[in-house]
């Protein structure tokens, strides 16, 4: 019998090895990575936890079986299923677009290896090992973030640096809490743990002033790998944070929890909203848009209510749609502009790469939370909820969206301009050089993004189900 948790760890690693060997055949490698991620996502969602399932050859898989790995427990609990499925399905989406936009990068094999590590981080008990697995994942993401022919990725280095700085806090907290369990009179240990956890998660989530790694990962290197970090990696950090809050309810009961989380989120929204329109490079704009989105999710968590938690989950579920699209567009435009994404140099490129431009614009609008896009679904609900309790914050969230729209508009204006030199105009082909396959892939993703915007009820029950699994906000 094969234990499910072990399968979720070993299978992505094994497929990563195969994909690395097949990297020369880009379509096979890309599609294999996507199919593996999809299959694991479906397995997590559909296979029952309470009984083994028989597969071909008489082999049985027991998804709910607890596995002991080097003396630590790996367990897939019912509440973890949606989180795990989120990781796998989002990865499949990223691999799907990476197949067309960055087929030669290391994203496919490294992404699968990262999936294995991040799954391990969500499945392993105690949580101390999750911190170590996250750190190993951050070190591996440097390889995925580095583009083939570009300069060394500053984003990868910064991400690794901030994750490493966050590690001691998480590990020492575990020891402090174990000591508190033995000596409950020492309440100072709880205060110290809370401070260390706050600092560590601020570093991991890119809270201002530790946000510099967020625009850096999208500014250089492989944009879709940056998206992997900001959706899958960030998602794993969010689920880890919520696991901490669930395991140690005194954290969410702390009198300063709501204020601190809310203020941190607001600072991210304000900084992101102010800096997004001032960027000269589209990569940095995407990073600041992601910062605003992350900040808004923290504001939702800081509302200290079940509704806020549901909205935070909604943000996690819809963020990949916008971010994947915008990064795919960015990759396509960079590929046609010698790796540069400076707005001034992109003049007229929209005519040569219409599908990349469309992906960039639809993704950017979703990141800004504009109507008829996936991002609107939760951003509007957040603004409505905030309008009652904190109208000033609601206004700031809306203004941050305006900041992102201004940035996207500048990019669009440059892309749709006529090329400066007449000789450049003469080489504009009548048919898009991006190919029908790229057009199909982008179209499917745009339809998914708009579809979620028009029919949010497809994702809302999942967010509600996820929020129901956590009890720390229950009165």
């Amino acid at each position: 019998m094969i234990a499910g948790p072990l399968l979720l760890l070993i299978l992505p690693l094994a497929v990563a090895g195969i994909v690395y060997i097949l990297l020369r055949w880009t379509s096979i490698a890309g599609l294999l990575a996507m199919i593996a991620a999809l299959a694991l996502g479906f397995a997590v969602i559909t296979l029952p936890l309470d009984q083994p399932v028989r597969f071909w050859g008489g082999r049985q898989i027991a998804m709910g079986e607890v596995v002991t790995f080097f003396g630590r427990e790996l367990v897939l609990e019912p509440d973890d299923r949606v989180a795990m499925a989120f990781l796998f399905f989002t990865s499949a989406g990223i691999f799907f677009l990476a197949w067309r936009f960055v087929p030669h990068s290391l994203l496919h094999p490294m992404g699968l290896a990262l999936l294995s590590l991040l799954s391990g981080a969500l499945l392993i008990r105690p949580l101390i090992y999750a911190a170590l697995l996250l750190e190993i994942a951050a070190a591996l993401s440097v390889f995925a973030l580095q583009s083939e022919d570009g300069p060394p990725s500053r984003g990868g280095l910064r991400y690794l640096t901030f994750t490493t700085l966050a590690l001691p806090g998480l590990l020492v907290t575990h020891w402090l809490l174990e000591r508190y369990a033995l000596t409950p009179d020492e309440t100072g240990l709880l205060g110290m743990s809370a401070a260390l956890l706050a600092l560590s998660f601020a570093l991991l989530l890119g809270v201002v002033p530790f946000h510099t790694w967020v625009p850096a990962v999208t500014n250089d290197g492989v944009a879709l790998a940056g998206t992997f970090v900001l959706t899958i990696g960030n998602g794993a950090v969010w689920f880890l944070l919520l696991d901490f809050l669930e395991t140690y309810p005194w954290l969410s009961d702390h009198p300063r929890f709501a204020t601190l989380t809310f203020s941190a989120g607001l600072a991210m929204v304000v900084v992101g909203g102010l800096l997004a329109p001032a960027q000269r490079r589209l990569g940095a704009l995407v990073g600041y848009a992601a910062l605003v989105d992350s900040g808004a999710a923290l504001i939702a968590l800081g509302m200290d209510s079940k509704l806020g938690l549901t909205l935070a989950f909604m943000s996690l579920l819809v963020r990949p749609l916008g971010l994947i699209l915008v990064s795919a567009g960015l990759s396509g435009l960079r590929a046609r502009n010698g790796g540069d994404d400076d707005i001034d140099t992109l003049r007229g490129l929209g005519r040569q790469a219409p599908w990349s431009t469309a992906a960039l614009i639809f993704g950017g609008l979703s990141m800004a939370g504009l109507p008829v896009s996936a991002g609107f679904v939760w951003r509007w609900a957040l603004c409505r909820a905030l309008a009652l309790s904190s109208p000033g914050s609601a206004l700031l969230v809306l203004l941050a969206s305006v900041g992102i729209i201004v940035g996207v508009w500048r990019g669009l204006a440059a892309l749709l301009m006529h090329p400066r030199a007449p000789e450049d105009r003469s080489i504009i082909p009548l048919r898009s050089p991006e190919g029908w396959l790229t057009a199909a892939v982008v179209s499917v993703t745009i339809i998914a993004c708009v579809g979620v915007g028009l029919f949010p009820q497809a994702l809302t029950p999942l967010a509600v189900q996820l929020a129901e699994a956590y009890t720390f906000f229950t009165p």
Partner: protein
Amino acid sequence: MPTLVDLLERVSFLAAMPATAGLLVTAGLLVVSRDWRLNVTALTVQYFFVVLLLTRLIRLEVAAVKGLTGWMICMVFYLTERRASVLEQSSDAEEKALARRWILSARASFCLLAGILVSVAAYTAALRIPLPEVPTDITLACYLLAGLGMLLLGLSESPMQVGLGLLTFLSGFDLFYVALEPSLAVAGLLGAVSFLIALATAYLRAVQIAAASEGRAL
């Protein structure tokens, strides 16, 4: 023939303040110097002093394994930088070195001053905020390594310097954390983290060299 463990036992008399002083010197060198030979040597000696201090907190064999991991990391850095220096020699080396000497002296003075400030802060912190479960000299060593490691991170964006900074910071934390959590699994995972950081930074350094070579070729 004496084993590594025997050798460590023989020099165990250094495993107190002399080792801490050694760490101050090696980490200080990493902050001030940009010469890769000096840096790799300083890192190698730094791991030696860390292992000496670790022998007071954990079993000698485990400390020796941690030391071996550290020295393997030094080997990775050595091989990467050696290759880089061969490729860089093709450029106008003499002119560059002359210019660098002047640039270095101003930069090195600043780094030295910053290093002294951080060391004083670490000394004060060791006296005022002692770490639990570890003696004072190891507390000082932890603060020194963590502080100077963070200083290295702040002073440069070059992959190798960042790598050296991260590894110095992690060494300081490891020295403290083994006293709290002596589990072999955690020790192994921390070793893996250090090794992967070294590989990632060496990879980025290789990319940097390749990009520079291509730039020159064009």
